[in-house]
């Protein structure tokens, strides 16, 4: 069976969904953040697959920007996590009351 663009799109949807589920069920902020990175990667895979399907380099351009955005988010996000750790002086980051609605 030949591999078509649909294969890539479905795989990307599956990876994205695993990322979403991870964000919803995990407690540790760093792991939640890793799941968000997984979501962004899944989207990037979609972009590249669609770009190849349409014979455009454009699909890959989106990925370059998404990568830059991910890098920016990581630096700020990990900075925030380090700052929380400093001000609370506890190693139990689970105490951060994230989900008080």
């Amino acid at each position, binding site marked *: 069976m030949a591999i078509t663009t649909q294969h890539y*799109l479905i795989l990307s949807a599956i990876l*994205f969904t695993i*990322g*979403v589920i991870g*964000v919803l069920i995990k407690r540790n*902020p760093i792991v*939640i*953040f890793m799941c*968000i990175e997984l*979501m*962004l990667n*899944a*989207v990037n895979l*979609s*972009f590249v697959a*669609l770009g190849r*399907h*349409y014979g*455009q380099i*454009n*699909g890959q*351009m*989106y990925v370059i*920007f*998404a990568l830059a*955005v991910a890098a*920016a*988010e990581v630096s*700020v*996000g990990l*900075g*925030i*996590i380090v*700052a*929380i750790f400093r*001000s*609370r002086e506890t190693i139990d980051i689970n105490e*951060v*009351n*994230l989900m*008080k*609605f």
Partner: protein
Amino acid sequence: MMNTEHSLSAILPMQIVMITGMLVLLLDSCIPAWRNAKILSPGLSLIGVGIAFLSSLHILNNPPVGKLFGGAITADPFSQACSIILLITAALAILIAMTYLENMDLNHGEYYCLVLFSTSGAMIMASALDLIVLFIAVEILSVALYVLAGFARTKVRSEEAALKYFLLGAFAAGFLLYGIALIYGGSGFIGLNPTTNLAVIGKSLSMISQPPAMMIMGLGLLLVGLGFKAGLVPFHMWTPDVYEGAPTSVTAYMAAAAKIGAFAAILRVLNAFIPISGYWLIVIEVIAVLTMFGGNILALTQDNVKRMLAYSSIAHAGYLLVAVAAACNSGSKQSILQQATAHSSAFGAAAFYLLSYSLTTIGAFGVLIWLSKRGRDIQTLNDLKGLARTDPAAAYTMLIFMLSLGGIPPTMGFMGKWFIFNATMQSGQTWLALLLGVASIISIYYYLHVVWVMCFQEPEEGTHSVRAESANGVQTSIYVAVGSTLLFGILPNLVQPLMDAASSLLRP
């Protein structure tokens, strides 16, 4: 022939804001004397915002022609109208921050540079024509706001607010990006070279009958992402905690700027998708109703003023979404001409409401800052007890902001609701207009409750003379906000040029 120079002159306002941000950062970090003189950074920021305001007015009157940067961005009157509202917001936010940062010992130049960068991000959101530009602009705005929310680094609540805002914001960014990917894929179905340019997509959607499923899916995910930023109801859970935890001056700025940027983007995106509005209009209407009632009902029980204002900002997002629904209604019952009138009056109403919401929200948070003692935030209703006796000036300005938020004449908030109500009636969504009225009546209860606490309750012991020292900045900001709330409430025609500019965004 469009060259890069032409494109660069058309985006002058946002360039000025960015360059001012860099200058503030540079001077603040390199010259110790600059850092010690607390007035210089905000002063320079205000000058930059002022120049950007003037150049934005200039572009509003002489809109550039042709594609800018290969169609990545536009400088049409709608974008300039939103930029002007944003710049006013930024100026007021810088003024109230001067006092607040001094009182809380947070006076660092980075604050102003982050405010300026996030303003430029919101301005790009209002001007973005290509979805990838929209995505990066959302990120510029959000990343700066994550840091600002955690700016009070010694306070655990501020840090938690930053973390919560960051995780949910990044989560929403994932949905936003997936939406863009699916729209990119879907645009290949409708007979054009695959693109994410909103103008191109809007034009080709109006020529087909059956939109591709992938594109509708993508639009849905895009709206989830933008809905997070705007704080619409199923995606609002971050709002109260973040608004409460963040430093008050940041809350004021965030409540106004993030909402203006998000709604400018929502209006532009949905405007391009009007030809297929049969597929999504009902979703927008339902979310609008949920947001209005959810925000108002949750606000009823709050005794923390910041939290109450957070829920009330959710309700205001709902009113704005009613205007969006009115703009995008293309039901079959009406003639093309009627639809076009409703479309343009809804856009004008949305612009007016954004301005009135920003002025009053920043003003209301400003009063809280005005009352804050050194090192201590005013947060609960108890702190406001009997304010009319201990500090009449603050009490009466707060009274006007509460009346405006509740939509009571003769304030700007009333005129804003009236315009949205009218536009909704024009577009034939009578039920939506009536629900808007009911929701506003519910909201009057908790706004008047604040007034009642201020005017008719005995002040608690030891709450006399609680004014912040060196309150010039916040005072100016409050008086400007009160003045324009009353002036534009009585003479709304003064804002007419802005409304005309916003309503010039054409249906595809």
